[in-house]
């Protein structure tokens, strides 16, 4: 390879920087104008004949793929129903937690139905419709040493996973427990089994599913801290689809759709401890 002179290297770097700057510049200028043309309005979707929905492909029981290769789950059932009520075909786009926002904003999908928790940060970049599910922090403990009140945790070791709502809640609002922090779900549950803490806190919907397979444990505190809501999300500015989705959620709630969806998709995973009313919402 030929040796690059320092001058040429600097020129190359300079030109690259200008190119990137130009890209970023036109990014910021055009992002605002793209709001004005709504390519995903209800009328446009009906004309196109397909609704593009972002779903998870690896999160049972919300959005996953069963052994015959079909997409199933609580979110997926809702997605199919929404498409049916719009009178269009459905096209699933599988996303990860990280690219749900990008998929919407880059126009890859019309709506996200992927266990999307409403947060104030996300509200700034996407538009959330009415919630169809609620979760909050739960605390799981062994059945023979059950924890049912936060006061029982005082001075005891409580297991959490870093970056979860549970960690956040017990760091900022309930500081009486000693937190043992882990990096993954697998690690935290192993720690609980090895009795490194008296209890473990996480999103209650995960805990319900876990105790189903670990009958020696129970979700003693079903919900503490602020409730969190799971909502459909559409692109910011897409009021047409947002309004339609809001009406649809109200209609489906009245018709008892979420109750059936819960019974079919979530109940087999959650076990008997949980009632539909712990998860679904009555608007």
């Amino acid at each position: 390879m030929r040796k690059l002179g320092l001058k040429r290297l600097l020129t190359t770097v300079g030109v690259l920087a200008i190119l990137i700057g130009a890209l970023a510049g036109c990014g910021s200028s055009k992002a605002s104008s793209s709001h004005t043309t709504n390519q995903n309005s209800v009328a446009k979707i009906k004309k196109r004949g397909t609704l593009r929905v972002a779903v998870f492909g690896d999160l049972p029981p919300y959005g996953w793929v069963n052994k015959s290769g079909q997409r199933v789950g609580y979110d997926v059932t809702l997605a199919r129903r929404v498409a049916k009520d719009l009178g269009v075909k459905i096209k699933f786009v599988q996303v990860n937690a990280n690219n749900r926002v990008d998929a919407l904003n880059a126009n890859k999908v019309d709506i996200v139905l992927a266990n999307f928790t409403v947060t104030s940060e996300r509200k700034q970049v996407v538009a959330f419709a009415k919630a169809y599910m609620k979760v909050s922090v739960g605390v799981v403990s062994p059945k023979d040493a059950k924890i049912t009140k936060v006061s029982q945790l005082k001075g005891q070791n409580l297991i959490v996973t870093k970056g979860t709502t549970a960690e956040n809640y017990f760091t900022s609002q309930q500081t009486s427990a000693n937190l043992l922090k882990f990096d993954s779900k697998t690690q935290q549950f192993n720690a609980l089994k090895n009795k490194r803490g008296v209890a473990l806190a996480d999103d209650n919907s995960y805990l319900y599913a876990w105790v189903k397979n670990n009958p020696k444990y129970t979700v003693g505190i079903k919900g503490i801290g602020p409730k969190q809501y799971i909502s459909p999300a559409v692109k910011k500015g897409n009021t047409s689809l947002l309004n339609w989705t809001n009406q649809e959620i109200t209609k489906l709630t009245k018709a008892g759709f979420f109750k059936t969806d819960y019974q079919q998709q979530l109940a087999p995973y959650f076990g008997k401890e949980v009632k539909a009313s712990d998860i679904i919402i009555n608007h």
Partner: protein
Amino acid sequence: MAHSGIDVLTAGSNFSRLLGGLWVTVKIALIAILIGTIVGILLGILRTLPNRPLRFILRLYLEFFRIVPTVVLLFLFYYILPKQFNVNLPAETVATLVFALWVASEMSDIVRGALESVPQHQKEAGQAIGLSYWQLQRYVLIPQAWPLGLPATVNLMTRVVKTTSLLMLISVMDVINIGQQIIEANNKTAPNGVFWIYGIIFMFYFIINYPLSRWDKHLNKRRLEANH
């Protein structure tokens, strides 16, 4: 061995789904290599021209695709560019395009290097018998550069096949993505399934890449023998 998790592979249509994912992987890699190689050879020849602005632009192109990680390129082409220019290509097309551009840039450097490695006297001898520029390329330079560039090309191919594992980031249903669907769907009932799924994916990649690797070795050996 009821709990070894191997039945995760055979349950339902899991295995044929994995094969379907593999086909997506292979298809994208193949088309990208094909287009990338053709474009790359042309660009490589252009880079041996004495035209400085042209060489500078092509150099910039090469460096851009060589420096920027493939993940970033995929993200840029799938999520960011469509927003600016209002072109919305399907994920598989974007994937093929990005990989083809990447292969073309790397190929252009391999071809340039190979052409420049052909001894100068060969070129001068060609010019002396009155060959035109393209005749010189066609009959003198390319035939001699070919064996010089081939091992690096084969190496590039194996890298392309392996890098397709990043495609799950832009919603392409490649073999890794399908594998993860199956792993997560069975995680509760067969926690060891993950071993078998990644095991079979390893075998798939091995079956594709090992012959390439053998071919590469064979080419190197033949070149060494030819030189002695």
